[in-house]
């Protein structure tokens, strides 16, 4: 535990210190400054990158919970002899690299892609539409890539619910819908919160999918950090951006975890 904390704390401490150092002509100086943060908070481009990052995180979390919950519920409650196969199919996207899956969406969404061909073929559009690069394309790609994580988390929570509780509720006259809303849903809330946090946390720090489906003109924080660190070689501003991402992500994940724990305890 101490070792894990050390390897988490040390790089973050270095990141934090670099974010307060002035950078001149791509070189770190010994001068302490708050300019890096001021630079980021006074440029609309990066303010939009913050907003876009968290919009993407929330949207991906919500979509994955909305799609993942029914799927997880079905997989847990199913008595089909194909249950094992169905679970394997639900988790199959994890077998392919996220880059491969994202390029699948690239082939579908680009201006000369399958979606445009289909819409043109059906006569629904006259001109090709630019589905990407866009924030919507990033959300679609990440929601698909992260769905298995949400399904797994919610499945774990649903499996932990004693089926006798549902039987007891129904034996006392509750309908299936009421049993689900009053018994199953509240008891599975920690799983929902966990699935949301997981999808949210991975989505806001994801690089490959936003880079491919968003491109250089639709930046999120991860792609902006990458740009400062490896393309512009300005490590001060890159570090400041990374600190903001880590602090915001930890605060939001902590808040969501507290909320999940409180709802689960009720």
């Amino acid at each position, binding site marked *: 535990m101490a070792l894990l904390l050390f390897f988490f704390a040390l790089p973050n401490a270095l990141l934090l210190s670099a974010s307060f150092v002035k950078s001149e002509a791509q070189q770190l100086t010994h001068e302490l400054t708050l300019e890096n943060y001021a630079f980021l908070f006074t440029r609309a481009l990066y303010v939009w990158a913050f907003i876009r990052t968290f919009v993407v995180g929330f949207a991906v979390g919500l979509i994955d919970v909305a799609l993942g919950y029914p799927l997880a519920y079905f997989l847990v409650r199913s008595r089909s002899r194909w249950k094992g196969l169905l679970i394997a199919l639900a988790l199959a996207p994890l077998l392919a690299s996220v880059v491969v899956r994202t390029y699948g969406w690239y082939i579908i969404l680009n201006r000369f892609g399958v979606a445009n061909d289909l819409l043109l073929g059906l006569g629904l559009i006259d001109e090709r539409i630019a589905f990407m690069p866009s924030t919507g394309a990033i959300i679609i790609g990440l929601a698909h890539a992260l769905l298995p994580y949400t399904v797994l988390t919610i499945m774990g929570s649903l499996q932990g619910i004693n089926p006798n509780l549902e039987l007891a509720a129904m034996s006392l006259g509750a309908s299936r819908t009421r049993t689900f809303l009053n018994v199953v849903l509240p008891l599975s809330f920690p799983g929902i919160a966990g699935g949301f946090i997981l999808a949210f946390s991975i989505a806001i720090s994801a690089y490959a999918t936003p880079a491919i489906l968003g491109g250089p003109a639709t930046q999120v924080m991860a792609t902006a950090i990458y740009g400062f660190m490896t*393309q512009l070689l300005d490590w001060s501003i890159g570090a400041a951006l990374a600190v903001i991402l880590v602090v915001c992500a930890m605060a939001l994940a902590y808040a969501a975890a507290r909320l999940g724990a409180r709802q689960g305890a009720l």
Partner: protein
Amino acid sequence: MSYCLAMNRSSRRRFLKRSAAALAAPYIITARAQETLVVNTQGGEYQELVERVVIRPFEKKFGVKVLHDPTGTASQDYAKIRASRGAPGFDVAGLLTPPEVILGVKEGLLEKLTEREVPNLRHLWDKTWQVIPPGSGAPHTLQYAALVYHKEKLERPRSWTDYWEPQKKYGAKVKGHVIQYNPANLLSVYALIHAAQLGGGGVDNMEPAWQRLKAQKAFVGVVVTGSAEAVPHFENGEVWISPYWSARSGYYIDRGLPFEMIIPDEGVIGLFDVACVPVGAKNKKLAYEFLNWRLDPAIQREWALAYFSSPTRPGVELPAKFAASQLTTQEQLAKTQFPDSDVIGARRKDWTLKWQEIMA
């Protein structure tokens, strides 16, 4: 009778040989490790090419093993060098560009080279040391940012204006078929410098470039960062006009891409690809040999023909037709612009920010 005594003479010899080998194993392994060179250079579609033309013949001549690291762009490779304080895990940073080389010299992360270590340095074009600090690396490839266009869709452009203000020459049909590159790619920086020059500016006054970028935005259909990312958009007919590296242009046109490469009336900006040795390289001696090998006239010729680039030293014989599209004479080099990479490095962040604000 003891076991030793029971051994015949040949068995005893074998035993002694094996014992000696076991005792000497750490030294043998070290000696072999010293004969391994790790080279970071081209990957992707060029991996096979660089291995066939440069790396394998080097291995054969020197009887050594080269481990080829094909990952990263020039700035990413330099980020690795910086993050590891000069010991990035490769002995040769084979594909840096002048801005990274200049930064590497300032930060003391690249070995200073002399003609003693790399004798072929003395044969390079005089211009070389005006572009990068003397002895900072071995420039092995020379190319330029050309203008390419789709032959079946557009008339031949003549000027950088035809790219920056495409509606003037081509009208509305060009809308959505112009490509823009993020200034993280030097190609974009060079194209922006041309745009600034069209309006009387330059690296010290980029305002005319931003005006042109704003006006051009309505006609831009594709925005990418890496040069290789543009290729699928050329192939599917989405992009009709683009600034593009002369080497990549030659490579793809030779493979059937319906594009033509031109040198606009205003001229072009040249680029040296430079091989450097990080200060923490494990096998510096062999790294210097590799740098010298890259500048060898026979290798320069083979590489230029295979990569569609120009040699970095005079006197390399090339077929006349091929040489016509390359920078092979003192006069051609004098006409080619080489903007101050120190200034580019210092201002690139601001230019990128401005570009992103306009294009976002």
